[in-house]
Structure formats: C-alpha cells, structure tokens
C-alpha cells in the first residue's frame, strides 16, 4: 500500500512537468496542445542520441537537448501554429494532432519500434521506512522538484514569467501595458520545450524509450492540468500528484491495464462538478 502510493507519487512527479508545459501553453495560446506527448518522445530520443550514441553524460545531454528542443519548438510554432493563430481553437487542436503524428514518427523513423534505454549504471534499490526506492526514482523526484522551484521563481519573480501570466490572464490588457505577445509566445514555447525535454527523459528513465512513450501519458497529463485548472501552474503540480497517486492506488482494485481509465474518470468528474478545476478561475462566457 505504502509502496504503491510511493510509486504513484513518482508517476505523479513525472507528470508534473508536461502538465505544467500544457497549462503554460494553454494559458498563452488558448488551445489544448495534443502534440506534447510526441514532443516528449522526440526530445527523449534526442537525449538518447547524445547520451548513448555520442557518449555524453546524461546530465549534460539533457541540459543541451532541453535548450535545443526549446529552440526547436519555437521554430515548429513558427511553421505550424503561427499561421493558424487566428483560426480558432478547433483548427489549432487538429493541427497539433497532426504535428504529434509527425514528431512521433520522426522518432520511429530514426530508431524503430524497439525499446531502448539511457546509459545509466544500475544501482541497488535502497529501503526507507519499508519503502523500496531505486535510484532512478530518487533522480526523478530531485530533478522534478528543482524544475518546479525554478518554474515558481520564473513565474513569480522574473519579468518574463510575470509577463507570461499577464498574457495568459488577459491578452488585451497585457498589450495595453506594452507586453508584446509574440515575444511572450516564443518564451513560452522555449520554456515548455525545456520542461517537455526533461519530462521525456524522466519517462525514459522510469520505463523505456519507445515511440508511444510520450503519448501514452497524454491523457494523464491532460487530466492533471484540467484537475488543477487549465492555465494554473500551481494547479498542474497538485493535479499531477493526485492523478499519479490515485491511478497507481487504483491498481489495487482494478486491472492495471486500465490505469489510464482513472485519469479519464477524473476528467469526467471534474468537468461535471468543478469545470474550472481546483485552482482555476471560474469560466465566464462572454
């Protein structure tokens, strides 16, 4: 029980980064991005190329890949979403779905369907209060916590983070205050790219690298973001932890194959009882 809860905590921690990326992107661009799963996959394979094929240490490979991937997403946005920006959220969602297919299959084209893993040495799991944790899980918790703290500082203390929140809250008002939204959009993609790259690496460490690795988390990531309230960074964090723990604990009662049913049920319940999520603003239709 405690062990399962701990595993769920780790799953939740993994989901926090992509959930945060989705919620930032939703806040600024106003559409749910279905390509984030595939983006994590592609970034993870980029790290794989640097780490295993070029032999860089995993930390260096991740750092370089995160920055490169952030830049890559700015370019992707310029090519795909920018021309569609004024076309309404359904068109953008369909475009993001198509983009997801493209990115995931670029990874498949390069590395096939076989599962791969990063070059990290195996270590014996250690015990603490009867809970078995392995080193990957410790790294996952550490890295995610660091990234979350960095995001918190960025969003509350730094001008660019405050500008992102301003655009997300009210684009027209932000414009009046002299915040240029194209610049903020570029920054948002860059930061989301870094979060997704790190998220992809963590998923790859927890399980294995294979093309559907990112998209298999997509429902859980959306559930986390919706549970916390789309557009609310703090909500994404709390939502991800709840989703992770609940879906892992659910395997005690339902077959583990249906684990993704839990996020789906959570989405349905949230939409029925509290559509704005735990931390979101109540939605007012204009």
């Amino acid at each position: 029980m405690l062990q399962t809860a701990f595993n769920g905590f780790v799953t939740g921690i993994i989901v926090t980064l992509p959930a945060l990326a989705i919620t930032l992107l939703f806040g600024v661009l106003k559409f749910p991005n279905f390509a984030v799963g595939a983006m994590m996959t592609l970034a993870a394979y980029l790290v794989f190329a640097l780490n295993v094929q070029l032999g860089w240490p995993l930390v260096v490979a991740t750092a370089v890949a995160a920055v490169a991937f952030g830049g890559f997403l700015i370019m992707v946005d310029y090519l795909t979403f920018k021309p569609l920006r004024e076309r309404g959220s359904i068109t953008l969602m369909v475009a993001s779905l198509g983009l997801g297919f493209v990115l995931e299959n670029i990874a498949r084209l390069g590395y096939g369907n076989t599962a791969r893993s990063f070059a990290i040495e195996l270590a014996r799991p250690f015990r603490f209060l009867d809970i078995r944790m392995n080193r990957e899980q410790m790294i996952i918790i550490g890295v995610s916590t660091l990234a979350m703290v960095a995001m918190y500082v960025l969003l509350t203390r730094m001008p660019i983070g405050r500008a992102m929140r301003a655009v997300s809250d009210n684009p027209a008002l932000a414009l009046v205050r002299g915040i240029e939204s194209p610049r903020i959009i570029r920054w948002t993609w860059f930061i989301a790219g870094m979060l997704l790259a790190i998220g992809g690496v963590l998923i790859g460490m927890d399980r294995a690298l294979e093309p559907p690795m990112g998209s298999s988390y997509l429902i859980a990531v959306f559930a986390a973001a919706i549970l916390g309230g789309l557009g609310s960074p703090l909500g994404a964090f709390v939502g991800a932890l709840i989703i992770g723990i609940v879906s892992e604990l659910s395997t005690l009662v339902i077959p583990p194959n249906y684990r993704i049913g839990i996020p789906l049920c959570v989405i349905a319940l949230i939409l029925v009882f509290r559509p704005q999520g735990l931390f979101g603003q109540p939605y007012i239709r204009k």
Partner: protein
Amino acid sequence: MISFLILISIVVCFSAILALALNFQWGVGGMVNFGLAGLYALGAYACALLMLKAGMNTFFATIGAMVIVAVVCGVVAFVTLRVTEEDYFAIVTLGVGEMLRLVALNEDWLTKGALGLTGIPRPLGDLVPPEHYQYFMLGLSVALLLGTLWFLNAIARSPFGRVMRAVREDDVVAATLGKHVLWARVRIFAIGGAFIGLAGSLHAFYYQYIDPTQFSNIVIAYAFMAVIAGGRGAHRGTIWGAAVVMLLLEGSRFVKDLIPGIDSDQLAAIRIIIIGVGLIMLLIYKPQGFLREYRLQVDLK
C-alpha cells in the same frame, strides 16, 4: 491487377463512410472527434461479436453495431457538453477512444486480445459463389456509401442541418434563437457515430479478421486529412478526399521497392509523417478544402 483495384475500391468505400461520419460530426456539426480510431474499433468489434457470440446474422449485427456506437457517442457528447466547452470535448473523445482500444486489447475472454477475432462471416457469404464475392462486396460497399451520402446530405439540407451549422458557427446565437444546443450536439454526434459503426462493420466483413493494431492513430490522421482536403462540410468532397488519401496510402506500399533498405516500420512512419505534414499544410494553405459546402441557392429570376 483488376482484383487489386477492386479490393482498393472496397477499402476506399468504407474509409469514405468513416470520413463522411467525421465530416458530419466535425465538418457540419463542428464537434471534433479524436476518438475516431477507438470508436471505429468499437463498431468493428461490436459487429463481429454480435455475429460470433450472439449468433446474429450480418444484417442485424451491422444494425446493432451502428446502434451501439451511436449510443456511446451520444453519451460521451451528453456527459461532456452538458457542462463544458469544445476544448475539453476533444480531450474526452481522445481518452474514450484510447479506453475502447484498451478494452479490445485486454479483454481476452471477449475480444481475444492481441490475437484478434477470426472467421467473421460475410453478408450472404454462403449464397454468393466465392469467385464472384469480391464483385458483390464492391457493389454492396458502393451502395452503402451512396446510401450514407444520400442520408447525410438529406440531414444536412433539412431544418436540422441548418441548426447544425448554426451551432457550429456560434452556439450562443443558436441558443438565443431558441435552439436546444446540447440536444442538437448529442444528436449530431450520435448520428455520426452510427455511420462510424457502419464503416467498422464493413471493415470487419472485408478483412474477416480484426485485431487492435488495425485501429491505430493512422485512422484518425487519414480521416481528418480526407475531410479537410475535401472541404469541411462538403460531403461529396469528403468522398474524393478519402479516395485520394487511400490511394496515396495504398500506393505508398510500392515506395518500399523504390527505396532500398527500408523496413516496414520505417515505411509506416514515413506514411504517417507525410499525412501529418499534409494535414498541417492543408490547414494553413487550403483551409476550405477543394470542394464547397452545400449552400441553399434560390433562383431569383
């Protein structure tokens, strides 16, 4: 070669029915459906299981599959749209589609899991001689495609069709005019769902064997591609779109002979990449597609 062309034409027919169903839901009704692959699988499995387990004949199994998919679609639309916006609806349909595929993959007692269902009967399979069966199947598929086209066209041009377009363009205005937006959306999604069920049934009849891998995301990719290329809301355009996309898909099998040293996984990946890029480029450069949606025209002379 002739029989290859016939087989491709049959595939085009049921793909076109699937694309028409998506066009009805998304193109005319404005309700995006990312669970298409799972619902398509539901249609195929429902039809096959109604025959194999419940002993129904092909006709009633097809009707049953259409009803089941329609009910599932209606419930999804009702539960989600009662409270929220289209953005959430897309996410929920995606999740429902994934769930349906997981059920097909994991419930071994019902669906035989990854092994798939074999020995699915065909319509009039024991009356039509096997050497002529493909002609019969082609005739049946074309007839069903034309029937679907006629039926969906009739709805799109009826008063309810105008309600659909009004809801798509601006649901607040439609509601202000006294239209019941939620109920209209539930019906749109359920009617589209019925034809997803029909397409799934034909899929099961054609292959006589179904397994979960046949219902992968490429189904979603090509159906959206067909609808966008044909022009959202334009039913006939959707059929052309489906035909072109399926010919490209099937034709790309021969690419394997042109490029040496490429395996089938890579080929599949290239096909999806091409479809995805095509989808985005169509959205950017040709968002209205190649054919126009039906507009009521009145001759004033």
